[in-house]
């Protein structure tokens, strides 16, 4: 696990030096994405993942032979009807003769997939690992996948938006946030997406008025405050110090990474600010030596499928005190030119290939500290947080990446 306190903590093996039990620093040296769209009818699943993987290898200037292992993730099986993607996609991902394994944590899977791959490098099991996550929503129906008619159980009466909208109302009641905050997030993320060539939605004529006039689907959540349904894939090449030295472009270095889970429903669950999310962030900050995330982190890519989750996660992740997250959004702090830009890529609100969305957050955080984010680059970004969640706010995975290698 990407856990633990100081290097060398715990009980070293007899004769092992402190250096020998420290973890290998993990570097991101290759990143690739597809252009996310509603339907990629021109490619098979194999062709889709291949496109992202090939771009990540090209970015790292590596070949298939340079990869030691492959770790892939996707959304729940019913979302596409592919039960064993690791079997079906092994040849497309050059995994023949190598280990390939699959990670499975609902919507957070892209993040946890990257963390499993990172652990393989950190533990010196493998030197260079390809990690990839994907989704082809056009080949199935996620809403159907989320609402199987289980005998004897009361059907969910409202779909995914209806599942999350009451929690948004609870947040508004708890914090007194004005009703306009959700539209500000959507307007910001859709404008940011115009600077990201890989984003699904490019709404060139977007205005705040249009967001606020869009239909109220699950009051208090409007149409324009919800994520699209996308086909897409994202891949990264993770490697060790030696691999980073050979890389043609600057690496992003992992300074902390953690996953936390909790039941979907239990007495005392706080859907507005889940304990597992707080604990996960705290673990990442502890590993990275971050005491004040608001001041020490330059940019955040967080998983915001409905716009109101930006202020909610700002509090959950410790960027704002409880009840204060919406004030950061409202005052422009999270804008691309604010002092804590959130989702410069346009975020999940602008592209949601579900299985890949978490990895896209991780990859976009890495692009920022590599200085490779193009038009949506945050100038001088040195430390960035990538965040993913999934299930009914049940799984959390996060990493913090920096432009400098971690102190060892």
């Amino acid at each position, binding site marked *: 696990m990407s856990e633990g306190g100081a290097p060398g903590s715990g009980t070293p093996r007899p004769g092992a030096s402190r250096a020998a039990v420290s973890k290998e620093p993990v570097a991101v040296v290759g990143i690739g994405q597809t252009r996310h769209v509603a339907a990629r009818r021109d490619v098979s699943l194999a062709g889709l993942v291949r496109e992202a993987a090939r771009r990540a290898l090209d970015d790292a200037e590596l070949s298939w032979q340079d990869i030691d292992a492959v770790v892939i993730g996707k959304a729940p099986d019913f979302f596409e009807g592919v039960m064993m993607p690791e079997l079906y996609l092994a040849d497309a*991902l050059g995994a023949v003769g190598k280990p390939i394994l699959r990670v499975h944590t609902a919507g957070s899977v892209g993040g946890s997939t990257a963390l499993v791959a990172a652990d393989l490098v950190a533990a010196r099991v493998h030197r260079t690992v390809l990690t990839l996550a994907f989704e*082809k929503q056009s*080949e199935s*129906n996620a809403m159907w996948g989320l609402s199987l008619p289980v005998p*004897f159980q009361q059907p969910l009466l409202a779909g995914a938006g209806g599942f999350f909208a009451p929690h948004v*109302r609870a947040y508004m009641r708890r914090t007194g946030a004005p009703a306009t905050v959700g539209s500000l997030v959507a307007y910001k993320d859709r404008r940011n997406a115009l600077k990201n060539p890989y984003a699904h939605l490019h709404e060139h004529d977007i205005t705040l008025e249009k967001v606020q006039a869009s239909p*109220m689907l699950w009051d208090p959540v409007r149409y324009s405050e919800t994520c699209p349904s996308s086909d897409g894939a994202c891949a990264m090449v993770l490697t060790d110090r030696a691999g980073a030295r050979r890389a043609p472009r600057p690496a992003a270095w992992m300074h902390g990474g953690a996953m936390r889970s909790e039941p979907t429903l239990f007495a005392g669950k706080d859907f507005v600010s889940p304990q597992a999310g707080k604990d996960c962030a705290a673990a990442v900050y502890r590993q990275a030596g971050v005491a004040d995330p608001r001041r020490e982190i330059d940019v955040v890519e967080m998983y915001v499928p409905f716009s109101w989750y930006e202020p909610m996660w700002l509090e959950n992740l410790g960027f704002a005190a409880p009840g204060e997250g919406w004030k950061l959004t409202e005052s422009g702090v999270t804008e691309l030119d604010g002092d804590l830009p959130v989702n410069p890529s346009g975020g999940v609100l602008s592209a949601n290939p579900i299985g890949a969305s978490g990895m896209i957050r991780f990859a976009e955080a890495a692009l920022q500290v590599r200085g490779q984010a193009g038009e949506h680059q945050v100038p001088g970004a040195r430390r960035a947080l990538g965040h993913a969640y999934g299930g009914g706010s049940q799984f959390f995975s996060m990493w913090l990446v920096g432009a400098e290698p971690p102190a060892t």
Partner: protein
Amino acid sequence: MPPTSRTPDADAPEVLSAPLVVEFPFTRSLGPVQSAFLTGLRERVVLGVRTGDGRVLVPPVEYDPATAEEIRDLVEVGTTGTVTTWSWNPAPRPHQPLDTPFAWVLVRFDGADTALLHALDAPGPDAVRTGMRVRVRWAAERTGAITDIACFEPYEGDGRGDATPHDGEFTDPVTGITAPARLDYTYSPGRAQSRYLAALAGHRTVGERCPSCRKVYVPPRGACPTCGVATRDQVEVGPRGTVTTFCIVNIKAKNLDIDVPYVYAHIALDGADLALHARIGGIPYDEVRMGLRVEPVWRGDGRYPDHYRPTGEPDADYDSYKELV
């Protein structure tokens, strides 16, 4: 109403069970290689792909299994071939290629280096052997699918020699297929839910209290998800409760016959430690609020309340339910 505790009934209801069918017509975009292969079958042409080391793979793949490089060098092979191994299927199941007993066979087409899985129509296992010669029996109606090969049949004779190059071009190519999937389960909700449902049949809501954290779970699950211990103490809750939060649904869900707009609410029944979800009725949708006191309305022989309606009591104070939101 204060909750009441009950011990498990000696005559506990039997555990329920029902079929659960998960079925969906998934679609698949084929990409260039599978598109050519399946369109070829429609035209009675069997295509393979040549790898970097010169082998011919049938069925074809997009990426070289040895080098991982993209491969697009399509070739045509024969419609005759050789059985490389087989297994007799004495009792075909629905939707299998033949409805009379047949052999599952791996067939290496003449000109190919790998084998394809399909069915062989043969009178019995004694008529099948590894190394036997077979040929394609084409389906009368072909659509660009693996079922365009109805099956294989025994064939005495030589086949064509080497594979020959093919550009993979056909008019009106098949670019996608529907791949229906169906899983048949027998679902049992277990003892805790069965007890809960039995009580609901009498319009009573009975949860279970965790012996460790004392929280009352509705519906009960037989175990506390936080403490990980079995829950056995039964506790009747409700029937009244408080709306803790809600949304107004303005779009019609495909599988629901409810007129929009309607209110979908989380309701903490009196005595329960977490909210359940239900529709609110008997009040204009835009007058529903957090803290509204509600009670169930039963219709016909529904297993669950049809909806909840206001009781007319004063709204609950936010502090009294905020831990349940």
